[in-house]
Every structure is written in structure tokens, then in C-alpha cells.
């Protein structure tokens, strides 16, 4: 992934978080708690990816916090040897907002599921994203409610048959990446649980981004929604479907790079093309730093819930002031402008005195 340089003085996502000079390994991030996900659950792969990439950040372990909601995926903090809070259903972004705003020296991560983030917690998610709080939000999307044993979720395909929808679900699903971009998230990425390399790349970019980062992780739930993303994993199929994004490079995919993404000259929108037909020069060169979110949004619309074309990688990575930096700045400004004098505050302007008789 190409480094992004906007030519602005910029703070990294981890600026202010104390670094660790010694050597850390994945093992340092493991706890003594028995991991209790079902065998084969995609959550294991994500946990392993996170535990093995965190040492690369070189942070003090005690300055990392994982905050989660409720769901299978939200058990995550118990397995991370950092500070952590397993909170209540849907509210992790709100709790993490308070923590990140009051503590500049922490690297704060949110772990959430498709139900946790998009049903009960949808409001908090979009507001954290629009405020651009310096949080890294990992959305484990298994397109099902795992913990409550298999009801459909807001990312389940239309017509999904589950225990709660024996005749098929009726509601139209969210595309989490589109939703985040609609909320003007400054960083949005997507990766598969099974692709450790790309997942790590996206996570690292998210960590280095200052502001809210939403990373959608397609995660398999072998118990209640097995194989939901198999078409993206099967050799032969996956090359035809996965459209990987690399900043600064033309968007191409297919076993031989025969497919690509180009602008439709008539409508101006993005579409999947055959490179041989449009010519290599007409492919869109991916630029995650484009201010206008409609470009990244158009990328997120290339595919459909049937996973015919699934764009992965970093959709958007733009610089925008973060809520927590601004909030701390206001406090500092106020302190500099007016020293705290409690006695003067309590007295105020209009007082009168009662003298002793």
C-alpha cells in the first residue's frame, strides 16, 4: 500500500501513544482465558491476525484498549492481553468515544458484529464515524446473529431462511461499507477472515490512520451461516469475484488481471469492464485519498449482496480533524485563556455579604 501524503502536517493514528522499545510477540497479546468460539469459527483467524500484527506497531501493551459490544465476536477483548471492556449490546462505539476523548495516550479498538454494530448500535456507529473519533472499529460480519443462535441480521441477504424467518427474511440488507461512507467515515476498509495478508495490511493502515476507521471483516460462522463467503475463497471463483484495491494502482482483477474497473463514459459511474475491451489506460487508478466520498461509495456499489464482485482493501483514507483531538484542544485553549480559579467561579459577579452582628 502506498503511503498517503497530503502535504499537510499530519498526526499519525498512534501519535501520543507511548511506544515500547523491547521486543513483543503475538504471545504477549494472548491471555490465559480459554477461547470459547466454536471450532472453525472465523473469529479465531481474526484474533490470530490481530495478535500477530499488534507487536509490529511497537506500542506499550498497557496503552491499548479493546472495547466490544455483545455477540460472539464481542468476546474478543477477553482474549487480548491489553486493557479491555466487554460492554453492552451495540454501545461500544459510544463507550470508546468517551475513553478515546479523555485519553490521548491510548490506542482504542472497537470489536463489534453485524447485529451489534448495525442493528442495536447503528446510531452510535454512524455518529462515531461522522465525528471521526480516533477509534479502530472491527466489524465482524457473519451475516447472522451468532450468539443468539442464528436469527437473520441486517446484513443477511433478502429471503434468508433462519429460525426467526422460516419463510425467508423480508428486509433489504445494509452494505456496511456503503453505510460507513454515507456517514463520511474517513477510513473504510474490507477484508476476509481467511486472507491474513490483506487483513493485516488493512488493519495496519487503519491503525496508522488518525480518525475513525471502519474495517468490515467477512467472517464465517460455521454453525449458523456456514459458507456465507465461500465463493470468495474457492479457487477459480475468488479471482472472478474479489476486486482488490491498491492505492495508486489501476483496479484490476481476474486470474490474469483480465477484468478491471473503469468509468462509464455515459453515466460517469464505475463499472466492471474487460481490460482488453477498454484498454489499460482507461482503468480507474485507485486513490483512497479522494475527498469526495462518492468515489469510494461507487466502489462499494460494484458488488451486490450475492458477492458477485466484492471489493476489498482500503476504500477511503482521508485526513479530517478528529473529534477527540478537537475536544482536547478546546479544553487546552480554555485552560490557556483562563486559569482555573474555583473560588472566583463560585463567587461569580454579584455577591453580597452578611456581616457578623
Amino acid at each position, binding site marked *: 500500500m502506498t503511503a498517503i501524503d497530503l502535504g499537510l502536517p499530519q498526526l499519525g493514528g498512534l501519535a501520543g501513544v507511548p511506544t515500547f522499545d523491547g521486543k513483543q510477540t503475538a504471545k504477549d497479546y494472548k491471555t490465559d*482465558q480459554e477461547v470459547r468460539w466454536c471450532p472453525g469459527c472465523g473469529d479465531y483467524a481474526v484474533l490470530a491476525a490481530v495478535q500477530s500484527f499488534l507487536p509490529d506497531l511497537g506500542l*506499550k*501493551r*498497557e*496503552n*491499548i*484498549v479493546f*472495547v466490544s459490544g*455483545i455477540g460472539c465476536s464481542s468476546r474478543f*477483548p*477477553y482474549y*487480548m*492481553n*491489553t*486493557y*479491555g*471492556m*466487554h*460492554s*453492552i449490546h451495540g*454501545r461500544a462505539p*459510544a*463507550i*470508546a*468515544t*468517551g*475513553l*478515546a*476523548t*479523555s*485519553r490521548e*495516550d*491510548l490506542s482504542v479498538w472497537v470489536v463489534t458484529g453485524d447485529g451489534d454494530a448495525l442493528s442495536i448500535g447503528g*446510531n*452510535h456507529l454512524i*455518529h462515531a464515524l461522522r465525528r471521526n473519533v480516533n477509534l479502530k472499529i472491527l466489524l465482524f460480519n457473519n451475516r447472522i446473529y451468532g450468539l443468539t443462535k442464528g436469527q437473520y441480521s441486517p446484513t443477511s441477504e433478502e429471503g434468508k431462511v433462519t429460525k426467526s424467518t422460516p419463510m425467508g427474511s423480508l428486509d433489504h440488507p445494509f452494505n456496511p461499507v456503503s453505510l460507513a461512507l454515507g456517514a463520511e467515515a474517513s477510513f473504510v476498509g474490507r477484508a476476509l477472515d481467511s486472507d491474513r495478508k490483506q487483513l493485516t495490511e488493512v488493519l495496519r493502515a487503519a491503525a496508522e490512520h488518525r480518525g475513525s476507521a471502519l474495517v468490515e471483516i467477512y467472517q464465517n460462522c460455521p454453525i449458523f451461516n456456514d459458507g456465507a463467503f465461500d465463493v470468495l475463497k474457492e479457487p477459480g471463483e475468488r479471482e472472478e469475484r474479489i476486486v482488490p484495491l491498491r492505492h495508486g494502482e489501476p483496479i484490476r482483477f481476474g486470474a490474469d488481471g483480465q477484468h478491471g474497473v473503469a468509468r462509464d463514459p455515459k453515466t460517469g459511474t464505475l463499472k466492471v469492464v474487460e481490460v482488453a475491451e477498454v484498454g489499460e489506460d482507461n482503468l480507474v487508478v485507485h486513490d483512497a485519498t479522494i475527498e469526495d466520498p462518492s468515489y469510494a461509495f461507487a466502489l462499494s456499489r460494484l458488488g451486490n449482496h450475492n458477492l458477485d464482485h466484492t471489493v476489498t482493501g482500503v476504500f477511503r483514507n482521508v485526513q479530517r480533524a478528529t473529534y477527540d483531538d478537537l*475536544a*482536547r484542544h*478546546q*479544553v487546552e*485553549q*480554555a*485552560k490557556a*485563556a*483562563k*486559569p*482555573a480559579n*474555583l*473560588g472566583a*467561579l*463560585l*463567587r*461569580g459577579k*454579584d*455577591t*453580597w*455579604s*452578611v456581616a*457578623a*452582628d
Partner: protein
Amino acid sequence: MAEEKGTVEPMSIDVGRGTRTTDVRKVDRVVIRFAGDSGDGMQLTGDRFTSEAAAFGNDLATLPNFPAEIRAPQGTLPGVSSFQLHFADYDILTPGDRPDVLVAMNPAALKANIADLPAGGMLIVNTDEFTKRNLTKVGYASNPLEDESLSQYQVHQVAMASITRAALEPTGLSKKDAERAKNMFALGLLSWMYHRETEGTERFLREKFAKNEAIAEANILAFHTGWNYGETTESFAVTYEVAPAKLATGTYRQITGNTALAYGIVAAGQCAKLPVFLGTYPITPASDVLHELAKHKNFGVTTFQAEDEIAGIGAALGASFGGALGVTSTSGPGIALKSETIGLAVMTEMPLVVLDIQRGGPSTGLPTKTEQADLLQAMFGRNGEAPVPIIAPRSPADCFQAALEATRIALTYRTPVLLLSDGYIANGSEPWLIPNVEDLPDLSVQFATEPNATDGSGEFWPYLRDPETLARPWAVPGTPGLEHRIGGLEKADKTGNISYDPDNHDKMVRIRQAKIDGITVPDAEIDDPSGAARVLVLGWGSSYGPIGAACRRVRRLGMDVAHVHLRNLNPFPRNLGEVLKRYDKVVIPEMNLGQLAMLIRAKYLVDAVSYTKVAGLPFKAEELQDVLIDFVKGLDA
């Protein structure tokens, strides 16, 4: 009016400008009510008069009363806004039951308020608004100023709008703008009548309209016009003097409950040496706490206006986890939304101050009216056994101490604390004896710094308790070696690991309860001057004023009554059970259907009698007096 001492001492002095000599009467207390359309500026007028009374050294209490609508249709009954002010030369407890002087700016204000004016009371009306159309709008068939219906009052008919307009003509202001200053005319007239200084109001108007000098000067002119009207027209034969009150020695200011609460939170942060994080969502009548705290960022206060109440309290709890003093403010409907997070704070045992400025309920209820009906919600409104300490301030100024007390408990015992104020004391004001900063309590906390396991493992056990307070350690992120995970799942005793063990759960439920039950709170103080009372009146929160005033009246009539007022509602003061048993009758007045009474009866098996009223307005001392007299006489009979 038993609260009045009844000194009326006529004398004749020369007042001020030497133009006219009026009779001056000394009175010990006066209740004035300014009433008008919500666009008439009655709150501002009342506030200003209050400041003058405060600056003069009177004791005072105020009761603003305004519609929920920002601008209800003009001239209608729902659009009436009023401000009642009680000021006196001795310490008073309430804003007064009934006004001695009613200022009515339009027919709607007259109609909505006249029933409260006792016979012989003074009524000052703005005649300009008494048009046929305005009279019909509020259902007056004939003009009450012209028929006999007001004959029992001392009526002063003043064409306030047209006099103000005429006086302001030279300023070049439009007629409409000029008329808008008529509230300052009314203020000027009353200021003259009660011998108030004019400089303070002039200064205030210049500051308020600093950006528009013309408007400032026009308002000052209207104010003087009102003053001169009293002075020169001879329609007012008497003026009144209310001497300064002999309050306890010290420096005072006037303060509303919400401001006192916000200052209490600022002070709590300073006393605890912690940054304050307020996470909140606007709601009447709590928003002013946010507005006030937002001004004091220089004290290390962060205010976060969240997307909803759940996010507000969530962010506050997140900040607490990070080592800040987490605070959230709301009213009843917001508490309903925050319940689940309060439960999380109970389970994770983290400090959190939850401010509930109660209003009329259920549901949206009566947003601008007062009520004490959230007590049981505060006590029990969560799933599971989730005990939470409860504090209720008794008066506007008491909100300051209550905020400090709530913080002390939250920090010492690592628990969410609910503070129950209400619309009455939130918006009402009274003089506040400003505390010395040096006298404020030390609320500083010790964060955990070292592993604490007692099994030699060198681990950190987040649920190992202080044997005295049963509080668990507060280990904030950034502390090396104490990395740990907390959450809403049941915790194993000591280690804090997830535990589904039945015995452990039973133990933890009991420990959480024991921790709250064991909180040190001051003993209940009994106000029983004769020591001979057989009837005890027990109150909590904002009814302190009316109950206290009622007790004084009853005693002045030669009867005995004792008063205990609870500030700590969970846990109750240790001596409460014993105190209750000393009396033959316990009466509990509440602005709900008997919530404290239910708790008292259940806990102490005392046959307490509930006296309830849920009208959106505070009790009147008069009505409580009658109730108490009945009980005293009933026992004697």
C-alpha cells in the same frame, strides 16, 4: 399566611428624588408574581428583580413557571409564563404560596393567575392588551377591568405598552420594538415600589445588549419610565421596604439549582483532582447543566453532546474507565434509556455520577413541570439486583453539596450514583452562602499501581476488594502490569474472570448489595424544636421548603411537629428506623403517589401515611399546614 411575621409599620419618608412624599411601609416579606405572554420577557423581568433583591441582602426564593412550547400562540392561556419571587428580611423556605402583588401583562395572564391572588392583594395590569379580541381569546365575556369581578383587589390599571411606546418615541425605535420594552417598564415600577437600586439593572441591560447600544438604552429608558411613573403619578400611595435578612455571616450570591449542580460537578473534579467528562443529551429541565458545564472547560471539563442518552452515559462510563470523573445528566425519560448502562456500571463497579432532574411523567409527561416520581425508577429501574446509591438535594443551593456528596460516594465505593433533583429546584433560585474553597472536601482517589493477587501469582485481580468499603481497585489503562478485562458478564470474586458458577453469582449479588448498604451516610437530623412532637413529617428532596415552612406555621399555632428531611435515599441514614419509631404518626408528603412511603413501610414496617399531590407544581406551605394540623389534632383527639 403564617410564614409571615406580620409586621407592618407605616411611616413617611422622603424617597430618593425629592419629588413626592409617599407612605413607606415596612414589611417583613413580599411575594410578587410577574405574569405575561411567553414572549413578554417575564422570566427576565423576574430574574432581574431577584438579582436586585439578592444584592440588597434579602433572603429569597423563586419559582419560574413556563409553558413547554417555545412560543405557544400569543395571548392564549397555554402561552402564559410567570415568575414568582418571595423576598424577606428573614430566612424563608419557599417561593411563597400566593402572591401579594400580581403583575398581569395581558388578559390570559390575569385569567391564569388571579385565583391565586388573595383578597386585598395588589393587581397591576397592563391595560393595553385588554382588547375585545384578546379578552374573547381567553373566554372573558366582559372586560374584568370594567365590571365588578376584581373589586376585592387593589387594582392598578396602567397602560404599560402605550406609555413605554410614547417614552421611547425619541429613540427612533419602531413601535413594535419600543413596546417590547414594556417588561422593563413593569420592572421599573416595581423597583420603585420596593425601593430597589437602579444601577444594577442599568449595568445588566448594558451588558445584555452590548451588541446593540440603541436597544440597551431603550430598555433602560423604559425601566426609568416605569420608575418615574410610580414616583410621579400618585396612583400609588404607598411604597414598601423589606429590610435585608439576617442570614448567617458570609458572602452570598443568588443561584439556581442547575447552576449549583454544575458548579458542584466542577468543584468535585477539582477536589478529586480528576478531569470531568460529561456525556449527555439535551432534555428539559436538565439541559442547563450541560450549558453551564460547557462554559468551564478551563477546569478540565469536557462536555460531550452525544447522539442520544445511551451514548451520553456510555461515553461517560468510557471516560471513567480511563480515569476521569464520568458524569451524565438527564431527566426521567433519559434515565429510562440509560438503565442498561447504569447496570453495566454496577457490574463493572466503576464511578459514575448520574444526574436526574426530574419532571412530570410518565413518558414525555410535563417537561417544564416538577415531580418527584423517579424515586423508584432510580431505586429499582434496572434488570437484576442492581443497587445504586441515591442522593436528593433539598433546595437550589443544596445542589452544590449534593453533587460533591454524589461524587464522594461514586469515587469511594466505585459505583454509579443517582442524584435526584427536579424542575422546581433546578430552575428556582435562592441565596447561597458561598463556601470557601479551602473548606471543600478532599475527594482524591488512588488508582491501582501494583499487582495485588493474594496467591503469590503476581497477577492483578480487579475484583479484590477494600475490606472496609468493599470497593474494587480502579486500574486505568496505561498502567503497566495491570492489564485486565471487565464487562457485563458475572465476575468471579477477586480475579474478575468470567464466571457462571452458581455460588459465585449468589456471592457477588450479595457483595454488590452489601457494598451499597454499607456506604457511610450522615445520620438523619430531627427538627423538633419543642421535643414534644408526636407527629413526624418525613420528606425528601425538593419538598424541603414547603414542608419546613408548613412545620413553622403549625408550630406558630402552638402545635408540635417534627420534621426529618432525607438527602440520602439509598442507603437510608443508619438511625432512620429508630427515629421513625419514636413518633406516633409518620406523614410522608411527596409529589408522586407515595414512592418513599412504600420504601419506608417495606423497610421499617412503620405505618407511615402518604400525602401525595402530582400537579406539576411544588406543594404549598398552606396546604401542608392544613394536612399536618389534621394529623396533630387527630392524635390529640
